[in-house]
């Protein structure tokens, strides 16, 4: 029986047939291996396993009891079927054997932080991960890419995991695609067109709401960078950096995390986002920070280095970055653009310095010079920056669809007028409009009556409209007592007039006529959302 240790991780290769004839012997052999050293992780490699009977399965069960994280990998399809039928695939991680792919003679079409992209045939590319133990990464990227696609971001999702030499790769379809870096480097006259496409996709990403907990929070990551920096900055600057990052509010909108022109592909006429493994949620300033690095930060002292990465010049990168910011912010005002760029630079330099120090940059003269340069710039920026927040287009647009009003019944007319005005753009039927109005009245009046009683307070009403499917989403936010109106029992609508209680119908009507009603209490706020398909 072959076994191999990788630090604390033990891989045991199972072979041939395991049945009642040899199960005891196999179990003894495994116990022998485990006798000397306790592994932190135990992996059973089933590449050469042809058959396993229930006697063999019982060994696995006993092992799993001791090592709950037990995984079985490289499982042949016959054996996989057995494991699937017996429910093992639901109890533990069971990974099928992977198809082998060779990249000999294949064109490298991209290279990112975590791997390289090769075209294996006319229609397909494989992304090979640098990390030899990349299955978890692949799984993660696949999941987030799928999530992004569901949320409306065009991307390529891998449909197969393969082995390339000793590395893992994920295969996806990418026909006739060209990266925007390629377009910019070969057809620089398309600069403005590229900026438009690039910003359009960026806004699309940043306006995509992600359900809570589905993606990592970028703010936490940046806080960890800022914490790291405490040892490498003057105390004053270090504290300011951490405070600035901590003051950025939680944001559940998507950010890509590595949004540069190599990760945007043009496939026929469609723009596709790739390299999704850095997907996160957070305030757009974090995105702008990493974008600054991709065009400027990385190459500030060594302008030529960008040529090998992006294949276009530092001058073009500078122009592209500036035009992108202007377009994204919806302004030509140089002051405004510079001020947002400064905020992005704070995030960018923080990331660059930490990254370089962790890779031994302080021991190398040229790289130490870079660290010193970035640090000097960062300290100077921190000195004159009081917030990382900025006003962008999206927020401006959002505010147009938001009403912040005192929660008193006298204001019902204004709330209704606001909602009806928003609905006008949708063109919904009289019936839907009335149902939405009734539901909105119910919720708003509830807030007026109960949320702050006997005090008074405010309510925010937000109306959002999506195109496909056409859907109206109205969110009510108040900061009053936690109260979930949906918990109220439904009235019995079959009773006669005499038996009926007066009241209690409002929330029932809301539930009946809306397509979804959600309640959440978060950060001291009651958040009630109505969704109606039009």
């Amino acid at each position, binding site marked *: 029986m072959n076994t191999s240790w990788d630090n604390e991780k033990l891989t045991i290769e199972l072979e041939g047939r395991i049945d009642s004839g040899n199960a005891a012997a196999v179990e003894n052999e495994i116990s022998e291996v485990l006798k000397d050293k306790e592994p932190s992780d135990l992996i059973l490699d089933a590449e050469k396993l042809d058959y396993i009977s229930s006697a063999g399965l019982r060994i696995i069960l006993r092992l799993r009891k001791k090592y709950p994280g037990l995984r079985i990998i490289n499982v042949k399809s016959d054996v996989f079927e057995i494991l699937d039928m017996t429910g093992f695939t639901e109890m533990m991680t069971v990974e099928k054997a992977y198809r082998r792919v060779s990249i000999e003679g294949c064109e490298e079409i991209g290279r990112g932080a975590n791997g390289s992209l090769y075209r294996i045939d006319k229609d397909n590319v494989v992304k090979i991960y640098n990390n030899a133990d990349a299955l978890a990464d692949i799984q993660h990227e696949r999941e987030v890419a799928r999530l992004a696609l569901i949320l409306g971001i065009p991307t390529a999702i891998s449909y197969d995991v393969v082995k390339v030499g000793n590395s893992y790769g994920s295969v996806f379809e990418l026909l006739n695609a060209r990266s925007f870096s390629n377009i910019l480097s070969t057809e620089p006259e398309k600069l403005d067109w590229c900026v438009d496409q690039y910003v359009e996709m960026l806004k699309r990403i940043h306006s995509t709401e992600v359900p809570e907990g589905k993606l990592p929070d970028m703010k936490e990551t940046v806080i960890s960078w800022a914490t790291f920096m405490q040892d490498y900055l003057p105390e004053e600057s270090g504290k300011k950096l951490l405070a600035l990052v901590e003051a950025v509010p939680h944001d559940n909108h998507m950010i890509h995390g590595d949004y540069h022109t190599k990760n945007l592909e043009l496939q026929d006429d469609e723009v596709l986002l790739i390299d999704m493994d850095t997907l996160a949620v957070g305030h757009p300033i974090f995105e702008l920070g990493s974008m600054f690095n991709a065009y400027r930060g990385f190459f500030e002292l060594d302008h030529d280095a960008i040529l090998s990465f992006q294949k276009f010049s530092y001058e073009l990168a500078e122009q592209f970055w500036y035009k992108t910011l202007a377009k994204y912010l919806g302004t030509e005002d140089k002051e405004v653009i510079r001020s947002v760029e400064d905020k992005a630079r704070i995030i960018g330099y923080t990331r660059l310095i930490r990254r370089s120090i962790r890779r031994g940059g302080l021991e190398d003269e040229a790289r130490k010079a870079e660290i010193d340069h970035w640090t000097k710039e960062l300290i100077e920026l921190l000195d004159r920056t009081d917030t990382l927040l900025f006003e962008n287009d999206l927020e401006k647009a959002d505010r147009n669809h938001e009403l912040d009003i005192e929660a008193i*019944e*006298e204001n*019902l*007319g204004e709330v209704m007028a606001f909602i009806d005005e928003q609905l006008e753009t949708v063109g919904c039927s*009289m*019936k839907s409009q*009335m*149902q939405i*109005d*009734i539901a909105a*009245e*119910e919720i708003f*009046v509830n807030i007026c009556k109960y949320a702050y009683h006997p005090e008074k307070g405010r309510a925010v009403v937000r109306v959002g409209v999506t195109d496909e499917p056409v859907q109206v989403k109205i969110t009510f936010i108040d900061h009053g007592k936690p109260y979930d109106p949906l918990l109220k029992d439904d009235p019995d*609508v*079959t*009773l*006669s*007039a*005499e038996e*009926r209680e*007066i*009241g209690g*119908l*409002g929330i*029932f*009507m809301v539930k*009946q*006529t809306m397509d979804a009603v959600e309640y959440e209490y978060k950060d001291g706020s009651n958040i009630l959302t109505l969704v109606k398909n039009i």
Partner: protein
Amino acid sequence: MLDIKKNLDGSTLEFVLDGRLDTITAPQLEEEVKSSLDGVTDLIFNFDGLAYVSSAGLRVLLSSQKTMNEKGTMVVKNVSDEIQEIFDVTGFSDILTIE
């Protein structure tokens, strides 16, 4: 806004409603109904000009129905499709007499 017109013909009282019957206007109607039912045996709500009824309005209809069940009849007429839908959802179609 709600415009309430009253037509009294013997012991038959008709309320002709025009506008919206909501949280703001329902108390007005309730007040009118309460103060006008003396000697009335047949009550009519004419919804010809009514564009909207929320649960506050339903409450007034239900309490009126309860009162009239003890002393006569109550009819709701000229109900729009949209409001009929509200009556259906809430089971009011079975409680009220809708013409």
